[in-house]
């Protein structure tokens, strides 16, 4: 277990403030935040490149805050991978073992080389490798010394989507096969929620929320996090009624009332409270006239004001009747074509109450 206790680290005028986290072993922990939020600084402090101003880092009940990098037992893969350019692939991989004069892990290294399929690269110079090959070599190099903890600093940010997805599966495979604990930073939502068992949101040097993958995705604690988690539709409202499982929210911007499930945030709600509701663009359904019945929740009538194409997806700006705002909707091309959607078309949409987030 890695515990970060009230950690404050400053670099120039920027500082991470009072970060506390408990990261159990055997999981992939994602630190997610926009550029300049302090993710790299936090990871570098965990690995040991930066010393904390206050607070401590405790690994398996041992304070490692003042230990040098080489004594912490956390392998590191930086964003640019930093493969040693004067060495071959094999020399890069064996570097740690040679430094530590370790001959026990050669079998493990051989196994990793096979798992990642890089045996054919061993005699090549690292300067002649593709992006994906470099990633694999960097991963094997980091794990070759038998280290169970891996710190990854946005290692896939420069890769093409296909290669990125392939490496996500590789990371999960390595994690399960070698019982690894991964501390990874990223600004990519898809990557974070695909790989992370836990996700911590870091914005502007402050840790705003931490929890399991689902907890964070479905229950962002404030509007700042909700916006960062791509909840593009945020509407203010007032609680009209609450029952055991649901709450009815009056939304003047949408000119209607919306029914929502009472999540953690909703437990304390009472009539008259001011709330914000959030809807992800992909969670808005397009309905056909003839199919409308009671099973559809939160049905809104209106028209499509704008259409934007995004490859296999389309972004629609939907304006509810008498509404004062737009709802952003993301639909796949198949739905777009089957509903013959065009700019200005009258449309009916619905949002399941389970897909509406109370903030």
């Amino acid at each position, binding site marked *: 277990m890695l515990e970060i206790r009230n950690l404050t680290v400053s670099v120039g005028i920027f500082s991470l403030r009072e970060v506390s986290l408990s990261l159990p072993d055997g999981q992939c922990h994602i630190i997610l935040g926009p550029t300049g939020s302090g993710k790299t600084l936090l990871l570098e402090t965990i690995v040991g490149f930066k010393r904390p101003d206050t607070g401590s880092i405790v690994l398996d009940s041992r304070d490692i805050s003042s230990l*040098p990098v080489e004594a912490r037992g*956390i392998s590191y893969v930086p964003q640019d991978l930093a493969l*040693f350019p004067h060495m071959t692939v094999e020399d890069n991989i064996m*570097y*740690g073992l040679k430094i*530590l004069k370790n001959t026990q892990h050669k079998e493990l290294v051989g196994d990793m080389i096979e798992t990642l399929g890089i045996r054919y690269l061993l005699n090549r110079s690292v300067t002649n490798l593709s992006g994906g090959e470099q990633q694999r070599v960097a991963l094997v190099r980091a794990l070759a010394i038998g280290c169970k903890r891996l710190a990854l600093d946005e290692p896939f940010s420069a890769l093409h989507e296909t290669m990125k997805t392939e490496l996500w599966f590789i990371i999960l495979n390595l994690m399960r096969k070698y019982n690894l604990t991964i501390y990874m930073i990223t600004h990519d939502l898809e990557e974070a929620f695909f790989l992370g068992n836990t996700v911590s949101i870091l914005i502007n040097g402050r840790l705003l929320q931490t929890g399991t993958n689902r907890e964070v995705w479905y229950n962002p604690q404030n509007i700042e996090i909700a916006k960062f988690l791509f909840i593009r539709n945020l509407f203010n409202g007032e609680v009209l009624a609450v029952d055991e499982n649901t709450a009815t929210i009056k939304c003047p911007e949408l000119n209607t009332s919306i029914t929502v499930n009472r999540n953690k945030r909703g437990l304390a709600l009472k009539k008259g409270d001011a709330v914000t509701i959030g809807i992800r663009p992909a969670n808005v359904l397009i309905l056909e006239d003839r199919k409308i019945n009671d099973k559809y929740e939160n049905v809104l009538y209106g028209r499509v004001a704008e259409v934007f194409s995004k490859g296999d997806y389309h972004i629609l700006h939907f304006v509810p009747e008498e509404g004062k705002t737009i709802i952003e909707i993301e639909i796949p091309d198949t739905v777009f074509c089957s509903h013959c959607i065009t700019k200005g078309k009258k449309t009916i949409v619905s949002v399941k109450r389970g897909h509406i987030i109370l903030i």
Partner: protein
Amino acid sequence: MSFKRLSILAAFSVFFLYAVLIASLLYFYREGFFIRTLLSERTLFSVKLSLYTATIATAISIAVAIPSAYALSRFQFKGKRTIDTILELPMIVSPAALGAMLLIFFNNPIGMWIQKTTVQFVFAVNGIILAQFVTTAGIATRLMKSVLDEIPTRYEEVARSLGATPAKAFITITLPLSRNGIIAAAILSWAKALGEFGASITIAGSMAMKTETIPIAIFMRLASADIEGTVALILILAVIGLGTLYVARLLKGKKSRA
């Protein structure tokens, strides 16, 4: 005229400036006299002394420059800016002033004590080595610093996360990566030391067959109005210096293409 042509013209104009200076020496060139001067015991002594002192001074300069440059490149510490500024001293103060400073130092109690307890510097070969070292150490450190600045610290950080101590990371990663830079710094320092005159003559004097490096020999021949001898020695100095630099660049180019 295009910008490219203009810049190439500028490069050639610098070349022609030096080429004309070298070519003008040939006006006083006498083949028989040149060979006699080249093979004379006094000239051979000067050549040997120059090569010996320049090589020793360069070796010491590089040995001091690498760790100093590493500290200046990688760490923040009190006095860093002052050290960084003082590296330019040999370029700001004239070589003669630098030699005079050394001479003054060895005439104060600490300097005299050093000479008494270690080796003689004033009017001795050691003085030439010291003068060349003082002239080249700052330049070598500055060159090494710019080489190390170009090598990302990430390599060392990764090496340390793989178990290397800071010293081991430096030796196994940074040093091999800066090999070409070290060679370039050594060549330039050596060339600077070979042609060093002002500081050397001030501290070591101009004693024939004792402290007579090639630049000092040139000065001595010129002072006695021996123009042909001066020309012969200048040509020897230019051939040794430029020849070494050219061959070193050739080898470096071949190595980086390999």
